[in-house]
């Protein structure tokens, strides 16, 4: 699969724009939404890199399986670990 150079340049441009948005947003006080917003942009950048630069778009579904599995398993580790921390009370060992 040979992708046109133009497509690569367009994605690169989009990535740089997203980077500038990320930096700009850091100077706004969005309360608790600063980090989720920055992460949302990070996910968008990652998706562009995976789909276009790494050729997932249009490739054999077998590769999608491997890419998805890594992400899913990371999610399992994060969710079930945080499941413990989010439900603890009386955290007496936390230094103030």
């Amino acid at each position, binding site marked *: 699969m040979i992708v046109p150079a133009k497509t690569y340049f367009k994605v690169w441009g989009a990535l740089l724009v997203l980077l500038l948005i*990320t930096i700009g947003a850091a100077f706004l006080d969005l309360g608790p939404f600063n980090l989720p917003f920055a992460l949302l942009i990070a996910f968008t950048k990652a998706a562009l890199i995976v789909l276009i630069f790494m050729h997932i778009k249009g490739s*054999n579904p077998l590769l999608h399986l491997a890419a998805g599995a890594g992400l899913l398993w990371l999610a399992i*580790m994060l969710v079930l670990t945080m499941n413990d921390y989010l439900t603890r009370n009386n955290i007496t060992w936390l230094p103030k």
Partner: protein
Amino acid sequence: MSRSPLVAEQFEELEQQHLADQFGMWIFLATEVMFFGGLFTCYTVYRFLSPEVFAHASHHLGLVLGGINTGVLLCSSLTMALALRSIQLGRRGATIWLLLATCIFGIAFLGIKGYEYHEKYVEHLIPGSRFHYDGPSPNRAQMFFWLYFAMTGLHGLHVLIGVCVLSTVAILVARRRIRQENYMAVEVAGLYWHFVDIVWVFLYPLLYLAGARG
């Protein structure tokens, strides 16, 4: 039965081998996601436990320098993608230049990182006996900086390895060992390089933008 000499004996056809190579690299990248994932889990836990400390400590990281570094890696992904395209089209010269450009971006990234590390050393923000933090909860802040060094250090190691791999690939292209007919080594190295870029795309907001800079 005519077999291309480029096909290893355990495979039947080139296309089968190509897909196997790509699949193998994607599985490896999944393992890398889990490898870095352990550190991301530590970060998530401690950030959840003291968000203000992380936000405050994050202000000590140079937002602009980190942003430039992010841009550097994004450019390197462009040159890497173009390098793969070049060898797919049989353009040996362009491939080599683009691979070298990718390496140079990688080295620039490491250079800026090194400068940042030096800054932290001067500011006494490297965890350990010489750590000194002016602000609330110095212990938790030290945890932030420990994670900063561990995550960017592991990432930097991967960038270094990537630079070595890509320069080796460039040499093999120069020697015509890798050509248009067997370009898969470039694709597979490229997948690794893009992955390293993606890790940084997440590290940047988590570490440098953990708190608003308004």
